[in-house]
């Protein structure tokens, strides 16, 4: 059961194309698993479309009068477009699957055309960055191996974790595939997984490890970012 969803504010920004690619992918990938948010987004989409296209309250007749004015300007563009009579055909969607420490997992459609950098491993965590070029925002796939723990940390900026596969627990609860977990400075946590999991993570700054001992792990803080 998915219990953590993107906020309505985030869903609204998503439908209006206002989020970065990394966060748009996160919301889209959540929605692939969450019919509730999917339905909300469909409503928001329709509402926003109507707001943009219908607000000036013009009727088709009004628009018809506009035609005569602008028809000359647009005629050539219309001809241009309609000269090519071919229709688009559906190209098979190439969803990727990745070999992880604990299983082979299929990635969401939202990631099918995103390039991944090479996997690298530090402790229990393997990371592959996405090539999205949105610095300082970075997004990665994190493969946490069975029994793996990420040391207790807090965030300088925000941390969004979308659990794509498997499950993990932290001090606040347990999470399952599809859970969309938004954390910021006020939260600290130490995720651990029994059977391994795959997360999609978006951060806008390095993690900061809290406990004295974990300072040793500070390299992992910038590594996970």
């Amino acid at each position, binding site marked *: 059961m998915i219990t953590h969803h993107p906020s*309505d*504010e985030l869903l*609204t*920004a998503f*439908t*209006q*194309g*206002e*989020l970065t*690619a990394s*966060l*748009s*992918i996160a919301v*889209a990938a959540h929605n692939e698993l969450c019919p509730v948010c999917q339905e*909300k987004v*469909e*409503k*928001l*989409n*329709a*509402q*926003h*479309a*109507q707001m*943009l*296209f*219908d607000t000036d*309250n013009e*009727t*088709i007749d009004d*628009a*018809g009068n506009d*035609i005569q004015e*602008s*028809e000359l300007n647009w005629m050539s*563009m*219309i001809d*241009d*477009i*309609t000269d*090519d*009579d*071919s*229709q*688009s*055909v*559906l*190209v*098979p*969607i190439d969803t990727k699957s990745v070999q992880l420490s604990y299983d082979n997992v299929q990635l969401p*459609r*939202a990631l*099918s*055309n*995103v*390039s991944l950098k090479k996997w690298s491993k530090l402790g229990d965590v393997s990371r592959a960055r996405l090539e*999205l*070029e*949105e610095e300082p*925002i970075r997004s990665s796939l994190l493969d946490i191996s069975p029994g793996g723990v990420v040391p207790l940390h807090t965030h300088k900026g925000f941390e969004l974790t979308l659990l794509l596969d498997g499950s993990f627990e932290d001090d606040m609860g347990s999470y399952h595939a599809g859970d969309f977990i938004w954390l910021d400075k006020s939260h600290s946590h130490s995720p651990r997984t029994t059977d391994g999991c795959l997360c999609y993570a978006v951060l806008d700054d390095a993690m900061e490890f809290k406990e004295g001992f974990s300072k040793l792990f500070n390299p992992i803080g910038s590594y996970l970012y």
Partner: protein
Amino acid sequence: MINSSHTVQGLDTHGNANTMKDAQNTQQLQQWLIAVANDRDKRAFAQLFSWFAPKILRYGVSHLNSSANAQELLQDTMTNVWKKAHYFNADKGAVTTWVYTIMRNASFDMLRKMQTQREEMLSDDIWPLVEAQTAQEGEYTDHLMQKEIKRYLSLLPDAQQQVIKGVYFQHLSQEELAKQLGIPVGTVKSRLRLALSKLKQKMGGKL
């Protein structure tokens, strides 16, 4: 980033959705789009174009910061309306919603292209115009076989892959495919023959 000044609208308020004018517009727009899809009706397309163009330009200017970019967005969006009209499904939503999806996607890809060095079009994977399932149901009858063929297919030269995909996965006629690729039907036929024999060879008679 999230715009913090952004106010959250109630999810269930539809504003003036059901005024008579809107209902009439909805119906008229739908008639035009269906005429474009079914009859490749250029007159109906011109009507759609005239109705949407000023609105798309307005959106383009405010999101892409120049009227040149807005023009490009208009051309991009309306080209997709023309080429993808047959995907429109009235049961799934209004024409305005459908065109909005196309416009927002095109604008998103344009913005990314302007801001990064990257060329991928991500928007159609983030906000699919056609649902993945529909695409799969329509395109694939035998998923396993298809998967296997795809693996062998990748071993062929691009031109040969193209004809196999067109004919076997997208169910185009050889004439349609020739038109789409801008090559003579004879070339399609010969490429197909060559590609099939190579594929058979590689698959060891499994095809």
